[in-house]
Every structure is written in C-alpha cells, then in structure tokens.
C-alpha cells in the first residue's frame, strides 16, 4: 500500500454492498485504485494517523462512505474529514440505505458532497454508483 495511489476509499461494513459497489465501479474501470475499509475506527486510523500527507500520499480523489458503521458512525467520520484542513477538500459521497430526511440534512450540514440512497434494484444501483464515480473522479481531476 505504501506509496500506492488510491483514487477511491470505500468505507463500508457490509461485504455484499461492498462487492456490489466495487463491481459497479469495476464495470466502468474505476476500481483499479480502490481501497476498502470495513469499520469506522479503522477508517479514522487510516485517515488521521497519517493525515498530514494522506491526501498527497495516496492522492485520494474520493471517499465513498456508508453511514451505519460499527464502532464509529459515518457521521463522525464525515465530521472528522470536513474539520481537518488536510482532508476537507476530498469529495465525500455518502452511500446509504437511509431515506430519512434527518440523515440527509445532517450529512449536508456537515458539508457532504453527495448523498446517495442505495437503490435496491441492481441495474439502478450499478448505474448510480458508476455515475457518481465518474462524476467525482472527473471533477477532481479537472480541479487539479
């Protein structure tokens, strides 16, 4: 992992969802530099212990974040990222099952870049995930 480029950091505890997500991204050839972390604590360790150069080190272009995670929730991770000078510019896309208004509003009040409800329908899911991947990766590239 050292010095390796990571385009997408996927923080997702459900292996099925992780697999489906990766499959969707792979279809569009976006999953080559994807790193998957299964719980919140691990995610914070990954992001914060090396925060000074996390973005530069891996050249992180996008974080896909599930809200319901063991130990540390997606909200807390989102807050940490957006309150950290070195990390706050990394686009964070929340990918969740929740259609709750309060979840949506809390994410946006914490400066989330996108809030996506995971569609149950497979083709919809595939399309949605790959679309956001293309969108954010491309956007990030153009900002650069």
């Amino acid at each position, binding site marked *: 992992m050292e010095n390796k480029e990571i385009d997408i950091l996927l923080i997702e505890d*459900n292996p*099925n*969802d992780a697999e*489906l997500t990766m*499959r969707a991204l792979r279809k569009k050839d976006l999953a080559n530099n994807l790193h998957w972390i299964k719980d919140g604590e691990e995610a914070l360790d990954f992001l914060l212990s090396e925060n000074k150069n996390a973005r530069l080190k891996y050249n992180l272009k996008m974080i896909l974040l599930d*809200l*319901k995670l063991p130990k540390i929730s997606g909200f807390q991770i989102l807050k940490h990222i957006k309150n950290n000078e070195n990390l706050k510019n990394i686009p964070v896309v929340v990918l*969740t*099952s*929740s*259609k*709750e208004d309060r979840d949506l509003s809390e994410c946006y009040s914490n400066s989330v870049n996108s809030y996506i409800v*995971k*569609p*149950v*329908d*497979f*083709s919809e*899911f595939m399309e949605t995930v790959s679309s956001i991947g293309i969108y954010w990766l491309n956007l990030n590239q153009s900002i650069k």
Partner: protein
Amino acid sequence: MIAHELFQIMLDLCPIKDKNKVLSIFNEKVKSLFKNISIEYVSGQKPNEKFKYELKSGSDFYGTIVFNNEYKKLTEENKYYLNSSCSLLTVILEKIANEELLKSDKKALESITKKQNTEIKESEAKFMELYENTPVALFRSTVEGHVLEVNMEMVRMYGFDSKEDLLNRPAVDYYTDPGDREKIIGLLQKTGEALNIISKETKKDGSLLWVKSNYRATFDPENPTKIKHIDGAAIDITASKDYEHELNSYRDELEERVKKRTNEIENQSVKLKESQKALTFLLADVNESRKELENVVKELAEVNKDLESFSYSVSHDLRAPLRAINGFTQILKEDYYNVLDDEGKRIMNVIISNVNSMTQLIDDLLAFTRIGRKVLVKNIINTNNFIRTIADELISPLQKKPAIIIDELPEILGDLNLLKQVFINLISNAIKFTGTVPEPAIKISGKEESKIVQITIEDNGIGFDNKYGEKIFEVFQRLHTVNEYEGAGVGLSIVKKIVEKHDGKIIAYGTPGKGARFTIHLKK
C-alpha cells in the same frame, strides 16, 4: 283595732308603757326582738334618771335594758307615733315621764283625755280613709287561707264588687300557681317575712295580673311557731310585666332569629366546607389525571421513539439484504444465464420479482409511517393548476389515455407536498383501475360550502363493492390480486392519513364494473 295593727307592720321599734310603767303594747319589731316580752317598771326613777326594765321572759334578751339619757328622745318619738295613732297612750307615757305632773294635773288630764278621744275618732276616720284609698292592696289572711280583712284597693285590684264578695274567695285562689302561696307561707314560717314577691294571679273574672307583694306574719303568743295571721300589701305590676313580657318575647324572637341565622350560617359553612372538600378531591383527581396523562405522554413519546428507531432500522437493515439478494441474483443472471435451464431461469425471475415487491412494501410502509411525524405547512393552493400538473406528470402525452376532465375547482388550504401525494395516489389509482375499460375517463370536480371544500375524483373503471368502502383504506388491504393490479395496498391508507392530518375526511363510493368515486372534504 285591726287597722292599727296592720299599720304597725310599717313602723319601727316602738315600746309603749302603760300606767304602771309596764311596757304593754309593742309593735312587731319590738316583739320580734324580745320574743315573749313582759317588762316591769322596777322602782321610782325620775324622768331624768335611769329607767330600768326587766325582760321577764324570752331566751335571747332576758335581762335588763337601761334607757339612759335617751329618755327624752324616746318620748319625742313616742309622741310622734302616738299622735297619729295612740294618743291615749302618749298621755300615759307623758305621765310616766313626768309622774308628778300627772298627779297634780289630773283634771287637766281628764279633759285632755276627752279631747283626745274625739281626736282619736277623727284620727281613726282619717286613718281609715287613708287605709281604703291608698293605692296599695292591703289584706290579712289566715295560714289556712281565709281572707280576714282587705282594703278597697284590694277589691278594686282584683275586680270584685265589694269586700263581702271578695272575702268568700280563698287566698289560694289568687295564685295561678298554688305553689306560690306555699312558698310564701314557707318563707313566713322561717323568717316572718316575705318581701318583693312577684306572682302571677287571677282576678275575679279569671283574667291575669302580675302582683308584687310584701308579707309579714304575726305569730300566736301562746304558740310562737304558729302563725296567727298574715298581713300583706300588694301592688299591680301587670303593665310593667306586660312590657317586660313584650320585651322578653321580642328578645326571644331576636334570639330565635339569631339562632336561625346562626344555623343558616353554620349550614352554609358546612356546605362550604363540603364543597371545599369536594374541590380538594376534584383537584386531587385532576392532578391524578394529569399525572396519568403525563405518563401516557411519556409512554407515547417512548413508543414514538421505538417506532422511529424501528422504522430507521427497517429503512437501513431490511433493505441491505434485499439489495444483496437482488444484486447477486442479477449477477447470477448476467454471468450464468446460459448455464441455467428454463426452469432455473424462471425461478431466478420469481426471486427478482419478489424482491422488488418487498422493496415496494418496505418503501410504502416507511412513507406511511413518516406522514405521522410530518409537521403540516399549510398554504392556499390553486387547485386547478396543482391537479393539472399532477395529471400531466402521470399520463404520458403520447398515450393521452384516459381522458382527464378537470372542472373549475375551488382553492384549498393545506400542505402542498402531502396533498400532492394524495392526488398522485388517487389519480394513479383511477388510471390503474380504468386500464381495462374501452374508453377510460376520469373526472375531477369540486365545490365549496360553508368553509368546506370538496374535491371529487371519479372514474369509469372496474369500481368496487360498497361494502368494502371502509376496508380499502386499511393498510395492506387489497381488493384485487397482485397479478391483476400491482401495488402494496398502502396508497389509499396514505391518502386517508394525510387527509385526516388536515382535519378532513375522505369518502369512497364504488359500483362494481361501473366505477369509483372518492370525495375529499377539507376545511378552509
């Protein structure tokens, strides 16, 4: 003579001596002091010298009384007394006082005696006049109750015609309460006097009078414990007694009124206390109810919280496995479709379609529960534009079926987002259930009556039996199989819930094979 004696009871101590210088006549005071008195003149004292009298008998005062220099004073007193009643004895007393003068002037004495006799008669007449006219009833009676002597005032006071008429009446008959006389006799036996006695008595004609009397007994000299006779003086105090009576009755009445008023006040205060008590109980009840209510509210809040966390979990956790089932089945279909035979392919499709149904169910259910938690934001809505937009979104412009006719509609007041859900559900139902009809049509009309707006959506679809009019609004109630018409059976429940959240109501009317009609009533 009786008259004199009667008069005596009014006088003070007064001994009178006879020729032999023996005290022979005494008024009642003297007698009461000396009991059986018999006093002798002892030896020849001169007028200015000492007189010596010996009490012959009587227990209390047996002995010698010496009248010292008071002799003269005594004489004067006697003179005064005797002048008015016993002038003869005065002379004798003078003689006692001045024995020598008596001897030397015997003739003069005789002439004086003569003169005095005349004077006695005159005096007696005067006295009688006074006796009869004095406005005090005077009487003498025996202990047994025979009235012996009365004056005219007595006759007048008790309404008799004459003294003879009166004398026939026994003394006891005067008292309305015969016990009164017994009490008086008792007092007289004990002390010889009964003073200021007030008694209620009767006149000859039976009418009442109040009398105040003084009585004095004269005891038999032979038998000192036996009353010889009773003398008395009485005055009529009926007038003052009447006044007193009136005063008493007035006082009684006043007391009665005070008592009554006090009772009333007491009753009122008792009632007040009772009401106070009742109020206290009521307050306790209210507090109890409020406490219960607070508990209910607390419980409700907890239930609500549970429900929220439940629906939150549902929305998160039930969907994830569905997504997995769906996703991996799709992957199977994509990657291994050719490996499966026809039955395998069919089974795979069944799985996918069921997952989709379940997803729909969960989404509808969540939408339904979410309505309850929503806060209404009410606005006036231009209903025609509003419904036209919804209808246009639901029907593809190419298809142009069914025909949707929208009348002129009154404005409605409500939450735009929620009411949009209502009309989407109702219009899509109408579209769905007119799908098999040759010329499907939907008509939307409205009217406003006394601040209530009614919007009616009717179609010429398959309709329903009116006996299910209420059932169709229940969650997961379907009148058709899923194969006939898709849907989870939540749409109308959501409609009803939203309308009721607006304090409105919805009425469904259906005819099988002819169509359905839904009317929403909303307050404006």
